[in-house]
């Protein structure tokens, strides 16, 4: 049985290490915060200028001056610090954030990532995604293995404009966990009841060493 959104988030939480500074993308990556091991000291960075992001506020706690990078109201923690945008991206670009978990439209076997633009469709902008993938120490992608038309999103080469070139370290899909290695993608783990044959059938990217 392939993983659902929450399974993928739970699996992604295994990427965390105690003491990590982490930036979570919008969508499924946000769910990862529900699966942080209790004895881990994890600090979430929000690229609009906050280190130590807390949960959503109660109705009473809502503060218009306190939002995350998805423009959602959030809360602060005891450890929280605030800073400006250039300082926030200095932290990101300078490699001080240990891990970023992001969504994707396509990933190539070379670790190229496309997640910001579909030509001919409305272009909304890349926000901080290009900086995150270029600067954060480790990039883990969570996404469905195939698009709605059933086509593989793990490709030999991305068809969409790139967010970053050779930036992805690991991909977690509903079918399993894949690492970008020399020559293609390596299967690290399969979701329950998912077979290697199914993965090979549903993946355009080269699967190596399996």
């Amino acid at each position, binding site marked *: 049985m392939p993983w659902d959104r929450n399974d993928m988030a739970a699996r992604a939480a295994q990427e965390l290490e105690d003491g990590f500074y982490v930036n979570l993308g919008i969508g499924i990556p946000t769910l990862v915060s529900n699966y942080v091991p209790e004895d881990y000291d994890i600090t979430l960075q929000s690229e*609009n200028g906050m280190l130590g992001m807390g949960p959503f506020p109660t109705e009473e706690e809502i503060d218009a001056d306190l939002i995350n990078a998805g423009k959602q*109201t959030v809360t602060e923690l005891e450890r929280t610090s605030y800073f*400006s*945008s250039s300082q926030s991206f200095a932290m990101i670009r300078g490699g001080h954030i240990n891990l970023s978990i992001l969504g994707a439209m396509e990933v190539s076997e070379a670790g190229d990532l496309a997640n910001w633009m579909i030509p001919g469709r*409305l272009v*909304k902008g890349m*926000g*901080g995604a290009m*900086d995150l993938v270029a600067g954060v120490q480790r990039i883990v992608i969570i996404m469905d293995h195939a698009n709605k038309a059933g086509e593989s999103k793990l490709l030999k080469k991305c068809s969409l404009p790139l967010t970053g070139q050779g930036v992805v370290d690991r991909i977690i899909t509903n079918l399993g966990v894949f690492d970008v290695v020399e020559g293609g993608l390596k299967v690290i783990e399969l979701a329950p009841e998912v077979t290697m044959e199914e993965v090979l059938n549903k993946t355009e990217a080269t699967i190596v060493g399996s």
Partner: protein
Amino acid sequence: MKKVFSSADETLNGVLKDGMTIAAGGFGLCGIPENLIAAIKSSGVKELTIASNNAGVDDFGLGLLLQDRQVKKMISSYVGENDLFMQQYLAGELEIEFNPQGTLAERLRAGGAGIPGFYTATGVGTKIAEGKETKEFDGKTYVLERGLRADLAIVKAWKGDAQGNLTYRKTAMNFNPECATAGKITIAEVEEIVPVGALDKMQIHTPGVYVQRIFAASHEKRIEQRTTRAA
């Protein structure tokens, strides 16, 4: 050298010109200079180039300047919250120069800091690097990005004083300090003007040298995504 003015209109007196470049602080609708934006709308100034991370929403923030087609070009990282923007963009009435968020922040900082260009790995191998110079450092490729200055910077702070010293509150800080340094003229709207000396001297986010005019006003502080948990 009086820096304190009584209103947004008064601070903008003699400053606005058609075709000028304006750097505007704010992330989404958080920490935006909402009174200055409204006053710029009223002024009718046209053909603006605006450097701001976002373009507001249809009826608030920088979106207000789109209603009367006052904006020629936006330099932004994300404009997805503004339908009017999309219509004008698709109709060819509005240019957009997408900058990665961190690159935009650093361009403004660099512009204000007298740095005309810097190298970043952000965007290498993507559309963003097309037509830009690249250079290798220690075997890795970086793209040259330019410092960005603006004819006018408009920022929103929490507290300020008559010297132009500013402090910001929580994530409403965002791009405001960078914009403040990048403006040839910088105007700040604040929630409260406090006596000089009342701000903690070690904690002034924007020293007064960067701010030419300042005024206090009330702020609506509209929230885009009201997300809550059970109490």
